[in-house]
């Protein structure tokens, strides 16, 4: 499971393929993350939560 912001999704997918993990679940977060205050970061985390749950559990479906 990997999280990254939308600006870096191309690199993330390239790396997952290059390293032999093309099916790696990637949760995508709105960019930027850097410079946000605590509550804003927490909001990003809440928004990503569903993707994380799906990403970590989908192999079991």
């Amino acid at each position, binding site marked *: 499971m990997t999280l990254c912001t939308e600006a870096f999704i191309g690199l993330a997918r*390239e790396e997952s393929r*290059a390293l032999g993990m093309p099916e790696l679940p990637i949760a995508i977060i709105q960019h930027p993350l850097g410079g946000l205050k605590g509550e804003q970061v927490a909001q990003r985390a809440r928004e990503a939560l569903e993707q994380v749950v799906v990403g970590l559990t989908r192999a079991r479906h």
Partner: protein
Amino acid sequence: MFNEKLVSERLTLRDHDDVQETFLARGWSDGLPIVPPTELKVRDMIAASGLPASQVLGVVPPRFAEATVENVAVNAVMAGCRQDYMPVLVAAVQAACDPAFRLYSVQATTHPCGVLVVVSGPIVQQLGMNAGFGTFGPGHRANATIGRAMRLVLMNVGGALPGHGDQATQGSPAKYSYCIAENDAASPWPPLRVELGFLPQQSTVTVIAGEAPHNVNDHVCTSGENILHTVASTMTTIGHNNSACIGTGDVCVVLGPEHAAQIAADGFSRADVREFLFRHARNRVRDMRDRAMWRMHEMPDWIDLDDDDAEIPIVGAPEEILVLVAGGAGKHSAFIPTFGLTRSVTRRVETP
């Protein structure tokens, strides 16, 4: 060797314009016209390396693809290299793929570092490289095309394309072509390659993940110490990576010959220069607190980050400041900050 099977994709294209449009559309160009890599040209370039086409020189991230003599030769032809440049390019690619260089980070970072290729030794004259006026600039085939070929390998083999693999926020002109030669004749000290343990008669390539050069203009100093104060001042800024990445990499100072001569005439050895710059190129905690890359990376524990007056050097030790001499007449030198989390790597150039 001339009968070796080559594995590169073969394209049949109509004419020069078709070549340019196709290579641009396929994402194989740096935006400038390329020299068509015909099979004959590529085979000649491979032969000039003295190595088999299939030999792997290293693995190039972010694609983690193998750089082979063949695909490096293809990019060398595209860049406009002469065949006798190939051994330098081979050494440069091998050096960049060394784990100490941390090429994945150098390629993918949002930082604008290019890969500076510094050539030192007899091969500088043999290839007609420029180590004098305009040393960082255009006008000399070897400097221009070796640097360009390096970038094309990083893009075409490694997959570092702007915004797709190469995440540099703004990039840099240093990413087009960044290759210089050390000016042995103008250096008052032994050449960099000798300092690094090679023999004077050997030639080397050093790769440095450097920003474009920051000029150091000192026209009035009549003492070496004062010139070095100007150099140190140029090095001391909070906005480069070395302000916060201490002890994890090196930086580079390229002294112009006139500055180097004055510094050496006042009794400074290269080691003295490094020691001076290490002691004087320092930011203060108060200038860095909550700015730039404050606390993004571990600092050495001998720096008291609770003391506003504490000094922060830009490297962890004097040895992490590379010093060499290049350039023509005039009172200018250059400081090259780096990505910070990378160490320069030097390899010998092996000619067939």
